[in-house]
């Protein structure tokens, strides 16, 4: 029997599989390794950001600065590379900056006892503003090192590719899963999400965990920024506006509770894939106007959420009945 806390995850996976099957029935082309590969590559940066977001949400917090940090990182790297810095060094610097920025937000949240929503909202303005200051223009980059990176991929059948970005995202999820479920840091994050006060009284080092947590989320945002830079070979200060909302939606669709303390990192992967699937479906359909696109995305999101709740409700009922007839 499936434990109650895994139910949201199972529901998400189930919904994804069924939805994919339905799409494939309508557009047989969608059932190809090419589309599957695209699904992973195209959503790689979102997925990486969503790993960080999952941790933050598990702790009961939120990180609204992600979209801006991604844009900032991409501009930062692009400008450095344009100035002649080796990309590897630029990447390392960018990750150092985004990680420290996250750590600083974590420290602020803890030390000033301010809600994460507000601190990271300010962080969102700040990072975007900083990106503008570096360059308002979009800055293209090209460097052999980047080409080499992009040259890494695993060939799938029928012209499908598991690209470097896709591999990077899957790695990020693997790290996320291990961190969440097999380390003390992960356990502390779940504890914070249960109740900050109780966690403190049980000896969880609040300050340290908070700083580590937002540093991790900053790191993931930075890594997502690098993925985005690779993806577009450019840095652009107006890029990825509102990506944090996509990431939050992916986390929640993946079965994590926004109130914190409950959810699985792997669920987020399926949350991301479900969003990608919705978009792919809309492209394949190709008849929706701009507004119908928005409306349909909203409706599908609604359908997924309601379906998820229904599956949960039904299985909880079942469990209750089974328990009573068993006992």
């Amino acid at each position, binding site marked *: 029997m499936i434990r109650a806390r895994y139910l949201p995850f199972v529901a998400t996976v189930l919904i994804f599989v069924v939805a994919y099957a339905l799409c494939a029935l309508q557009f047989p082309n969608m059932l190809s390794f090419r589309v599957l590969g695209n699904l992973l590559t195209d959503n790689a940066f979102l997925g990486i950001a969503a790993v960080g977001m999952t941790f933050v949400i598990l702790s009961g917090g939120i990180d609204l600065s992600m979209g801006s940090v991604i844009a900032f990182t991409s501009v930062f790297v692009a400008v450095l590379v344009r100035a002649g810095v080796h990309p590897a060094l630029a990447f390392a610097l960018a990750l150092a900056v985004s990680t420290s920025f996250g750590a600083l937000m974590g420290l602020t949240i803890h030390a000033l006892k*301010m*809600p994460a929503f507000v601190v990271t909202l300010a962080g969102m303005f700040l990072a975007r*503003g900083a990106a503008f200051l570096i360059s308002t223009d979009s800055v293209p980059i090209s460097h052999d090192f980047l080409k080499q990176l992009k040259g890494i991929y695993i060939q799938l059948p029928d012209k499908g590719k598991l690209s470097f970005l896709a591999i990077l995202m899957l790695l990020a999820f693997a790290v996320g899963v291990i961190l969440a479920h097999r380390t003390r840091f992960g356990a502390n994050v779940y504890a914070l999400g249960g109740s900050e006060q109780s966690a403190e009284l049980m000896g969880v080092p609040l300050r340290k965990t908070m700083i580590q947590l937002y540093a991790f989320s900053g790191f993931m945002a930075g890594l997502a920024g690098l993925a985005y830079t690779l993806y577009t070979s450019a840095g652009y200060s107006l890029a990825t506006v509102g990506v944090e909302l996509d990431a939050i939606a992916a986390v929640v669709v993946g079965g994590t509770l926004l109130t914190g303390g409950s959810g699985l990192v792997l669920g987020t992967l399926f949350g991301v894939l479900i969003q990608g699937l919705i978009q792919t479906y809309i492209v394949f359909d190709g008849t929706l106007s701009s507004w119908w696109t928005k409306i349909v995305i*909203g409706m599908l999101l*609604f359908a997924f*959420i309601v379906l998820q709740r229904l599956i949960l409700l039904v299985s909880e009922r079942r469990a209750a009945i089974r328990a009573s007839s068993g006992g």
Partner: protein
Amino acid sequence: MTKLKQLRPQLLALAVVLVLIGLISPGFFSVTVQNGRLYGSLIDVGVRVAPVALLAIGMTLVIATKGIDLSVGAVMAITGAVAATLVADGHSVPVVLAVSLALGLVCGIWNGVLVAFLDIQPIIATLILMVAGRGIAQLITGGVILTFNDPAFSFIGSGAVLGIPMPILIWLAMGLAVGLLVRRSALGLLIEAVGINRRASMLVGVRARFLILATYAISGLCAAMAGMIVTADIHGADANNAGLWLELDAILAVVIGGTSLAGGRFSITASLIGALIIQALNTGILMSGWPPEFNLIVKAVVIVAILTLQSPAVADELSVLRGMLRRKGAKS
């Protein structure tokens, strides 16, 4: 309503922001009468704050129940689009008002049902309408800016009564009305109770679901008003941009006003002051003449500064400090 003393940090922050702007652009405080209405940057702040102020009123109640309403910007776009369509079709102002407000109410109730009855988490529940709502608004306008020429409706946005611009009157009136509604009835207390401890509240017979639904409904209503003001202001409905990202400003206003995002105690007055602080900042930046690349940085820095000074941690330290000073003063 709320005691002045409790509003001290917000009023102080507003004063500091205003003084800073005054230093940068000296003409900021001059208010004159022109064409029979008040005129000046300060008045602009009062007018331009109207949408965020209205949103903040509803948002305060929603946040007090531990919720959040991300859809208000999209609801503004929807009601604006509908209002513009109706006005362009020649309907009378009362009809336009009634239909638009009803629509806002319906949007709010939709959110409320998702949150209160389907138990969907507020951010996600309202994200649905945030995404789809703008699409609906564009569907109504066909993606274009629907313009109209109807002085009666435009009056809402740019008219004045006794020299005071309408938007100012509207947000003040709405703030007063909702403030009185929640504080003169028991709604305020019950909303706070639900926000602090929903389970305990339900156990004493508080109808938590109904209350939550009501707060989202009020939020929808406020968004409808904001949408109409914006539409009347530019004599047209811009479904693409009306209210875009305004939900974040409204949330920020509520937080600057000291209402906790964890729900519970709230003050509408304080949220309105929070909205004024944000708008004063926006207007101040425009007056400053700095290049627009700096806008976000300036805004972020000032907001962080304000919130830092207001934060419970710093407030504690300050009160300890104040106590020490007082003790020292008493000794010497």
